[in-house]
């Protein structure tokens, strides 16, 4: 059979007749890598552009269509020492990029307006001997700059406020919009009437500050998306597809259609859902069900994306998603859980629901008060609008996004990616964490448990022999022995193992029967029935390796630390009781249940929520996806199935469980800072509002008060990155 790699799915044809592809590249950290890659690729004839984006760790290549194939670039990069894989920017990611560009344009316009209006305003404030004509001229120029700038740069706020008002609710953008429009309108009327004060500068400055906060927030979100996109691409999920009965081609899963026939070799993870049409094998479904025992697969067996093929080669006909009973059940539960997820009201929205009526009532009372005390309507209205301007939620609008941005950045460095913006607020209140076992508390890969009981030299030799096998258990031995040099002339006996002759002695690695080590194997299995065994023989010597999924190295410490923060820990797994008990006992978790179905998991979480608990669900399997959606907040490791990752609010990277702890710590810190910032904003208003009510809020005082309070909450937000790290 002929094997080719087909990446044409990712190639874009530009209008100029040039082909373009985007690659995610791993390990690009410095300027050296950048020029090495760019020069290495530009040396290929017909390549017209090779440009690395160091921020996103991506590479754009353009070439004249013809002889060049995208696979060549990936091979060239591998020669240079970089793993690369093509990717398609997700629709959400492109939308985020568009959004942050739009915000940056608005920020540029607002900053231009603020600077130039301020230049004119400072002239008015400083020029005590200025003639009224000159002052009017300056005010008119300010209006000329401020009105179009505010009309353009205010769009993000106007749109969001309009959307909120249309569904009869109030968000933070409603008071902002009202404040800006009234300030501009009043200033224009005052300018026409040759008055002394105009507040154009305040309105545009307010927009500038708020846009800066929004932009940083957006940028953080976009960066998280980019990292998540790269990680997804670098998983390089491909399937081996039959293009004709005799010819196979490695294609990205995005290019696989229902009805295609794919080849699944031993040791490969299945990338599609489908039905076996040929072959027999053992399948590891632990990523789907949490069950670590293997199931038998033969003609007619349904296989799911994410399962691991252990022993034999299979041919699978790809089915459309959600055809199987398990998958359909999970999808149904997931939809139900997503509908039932009560709409969480964000802190910012709760604050603005309180804030908007209070402020607008204060302004109204100020106006009525002035009229009652005998002032003219004009003076009363001007004072009321000054109250609105000075209370305009400059600090309030920044108080929460600034903290979120800083906290998201700090969490990003600790290995936590945020999927949803309000995840921080929800994670801060968590008092119960429900863990899944397989792939969450344990590492997704297998590891050798009894390496210490085998002589080092034998272990090395077995590892080198194991390199020749695709079987996942053998691969675990090779990985644990850190074997690099494969042995020569290795013969593989399908379904049994591999053998080779070294220095005249026969080595065998494979099933206990194949190596004649059944006695030793049954001893090991008697001690720990959950392990998989692989036997190794050298001449007359017999060894048996026990292989299993190990707990994450810091799992016990992380769980103890979470508990010391007053969080109760539970363990729910679809796996057998013995396996779950073992994990629970070694982690000191007392509340655990084994053999739980997805429906049971949801029921349990809903139960906890009814008791008033705030539940965080941490899980990776497809069977966890519905309960992830049902929990208050949810978290997945990066190795999780697509469905779980898409459902989770937070995704964590790496081999350790510490990011779960970091997520809780940073969220709690961020939440307390958000509250603090809100109180700072309230305190500022208590000081500033009386000044405005008595009519002393000149444009100069408004400008000073607004920028002062904004700086204060921004500086306070910076503290969100300072959290004591570690397990204490």
């Amino acid at each position: 059979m002929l094997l080719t790699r087909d990446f044409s799915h990712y190639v874009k044809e530009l209008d100029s007749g040039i082909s373009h592809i985007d690659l995610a590249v791993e390990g690009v950290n410095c300027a050296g890598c950048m020029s090495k890659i760019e020069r290495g690729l530009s040396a290929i004839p017909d390549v017209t552009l090779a440009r690395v984006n160091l921020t996103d760790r991506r590479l754009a290549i353009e070439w004249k269509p013809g002889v060049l194939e995208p696979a060549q670039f990936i091979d060239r990069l591998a020669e240079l020492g970089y793993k690369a894989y093509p990717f398609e920017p997700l629709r959400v990611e492109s939308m985020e990029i568009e959004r942050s560009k739009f915000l940056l344009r608005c920020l540029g316009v607002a900053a231009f307006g603020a600077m130039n209006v301020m230049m004119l305003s400072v002239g008015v404030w400083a020029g005590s001997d200025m003639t009224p004509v000159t002052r009017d001229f300056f005010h008119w120029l300010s209006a000329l700059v401020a009105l179009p700038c505010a009309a353009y740069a205010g769009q993000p706020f106007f749109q969001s406020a309009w959307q909120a008002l249309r569904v009869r609710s109030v968000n933070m953008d409603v008071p902002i919009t009202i404040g800006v429009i009234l300030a501009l309108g009043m200033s224009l009327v005052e300018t026409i009437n040759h008055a002394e004060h105009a507040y154009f500068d305040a309105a545009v400055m307010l927009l500038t500050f708020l846009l800066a906060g929004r932009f940083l927030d957006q940028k953080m979100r976009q960066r998280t998306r980019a990292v998540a996109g790269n990680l997804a691409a670098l998983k390089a999920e491909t399937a081996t597809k039959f293009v004709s009965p005799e010819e196979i081609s490695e294609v990205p899963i995005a290019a696989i259609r229902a009805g295609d026939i794919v080849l699944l070799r031993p040791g490969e993870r299945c990338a599609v859902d489908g039905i076996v049409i040929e072959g027999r094998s053992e399948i590891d479904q632990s990523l789907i069900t949490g069950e670590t025992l293997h199931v038998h697969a033969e003609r007619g067996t349904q296989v799911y994306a994410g399962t691991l093929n252990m022993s034999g080669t299979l041919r699978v006909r790809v089915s459309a998603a959600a055809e199987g009973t398990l998958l359909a059940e999970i999808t149904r539960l997931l939809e139900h859980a997503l509908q039932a997820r009560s709409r969480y009201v964000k802190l910012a929205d709760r604050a603005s629901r309180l804030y908007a009526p209070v402020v607008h009532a204060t302004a109204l009372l100020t106006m009525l008060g002035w009229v009652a005390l005998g002032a003219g309507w004009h003076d009363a209205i001007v004072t009321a609008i000054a109250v609105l301007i000075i209370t305009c939620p400059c600090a309030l609008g920044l108080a929460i996004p600034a903290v979120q941005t800083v906290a998201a950045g700090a969490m990003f460095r600790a290995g936590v990616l945020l999927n949803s913006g309000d995840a921080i607020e929800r994670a801060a209140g968590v008092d119960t964490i429900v863990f899944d076992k397989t792939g969450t508390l344990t590492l997704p890969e297998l590891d050798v448990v009894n390496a210490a009981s085998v002589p080092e030299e034998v272990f090395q030799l077995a590892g080198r022999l194991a390199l020749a096998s695709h079987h996942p258990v053998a691969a675990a031995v090779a990985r644990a022995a850190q074997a690099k040099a494969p042995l020569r002339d290795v013969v593989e006996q399908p379904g049994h193992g591999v053998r080779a002759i070294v220095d005249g002695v026969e080595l065998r690695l494979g099933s206990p029967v194949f190596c004649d080590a059944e006695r030793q194997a049954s001893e090991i299995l008697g001690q720990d029935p959950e392990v998989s065994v692989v036997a190794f023989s050298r001449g007359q010597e017999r060894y048996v390796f026990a292989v299993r999924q190990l707990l994450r190295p810091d799992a016990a410490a992380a769980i103890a630390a979470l508990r010391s923060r007053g969080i109760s820990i539970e363990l729910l797994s679809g796996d057998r009781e013995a396996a779950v008990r073992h994990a629970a006992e070694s982690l000191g978790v007392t509340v655990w249940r084994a053999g739980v179905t997805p429906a049971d998991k949801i029921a349990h979480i809903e139960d906890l929520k009814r008791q008033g608990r705030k539940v965080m669900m941490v899980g990776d399997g497809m069977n966890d996806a519905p309960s992830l959606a049902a929990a208050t907040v949810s978290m997945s490791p990066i190795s999780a199935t697509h469905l779980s990752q898409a459902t989770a609010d937070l995704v964590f990277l790496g081999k350790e469980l510490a990011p779960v702890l970091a997520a809780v710590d940073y969220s709690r810190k961020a939440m307390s800072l958000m509250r603090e910032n809100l109180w700072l904003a309230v305190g500022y208003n208590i000081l500033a509002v009386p000044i405005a009510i008595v009519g002393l809020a000149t444009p100069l005082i408004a400008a000073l008060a607004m920028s002062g309070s904004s700086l204060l909450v921004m500086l306070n937000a910076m503290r969100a990155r300072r959290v004591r790290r570690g397990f204490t």
Partner: protein
Amino acid sequence: MEVMVILVPLALALGLLGLLAFLWSLKTGQYDDLEGAAWRAIADDDLPPLPPAPTPPQIERG
């Protein structure tokens, strides 16, 4: 004071020019990779290779 009728609009026009330059640089993707751009500025791959260093004169020892 009449000079301000010229100077102030001139100042605003210069500011506007700056804004247009910013919008142009944004549109041409110059803010897409700030980290990489920082390094590109000091990359020296646009320089011709240095001539080989002259071998130091051998000192004859008597």
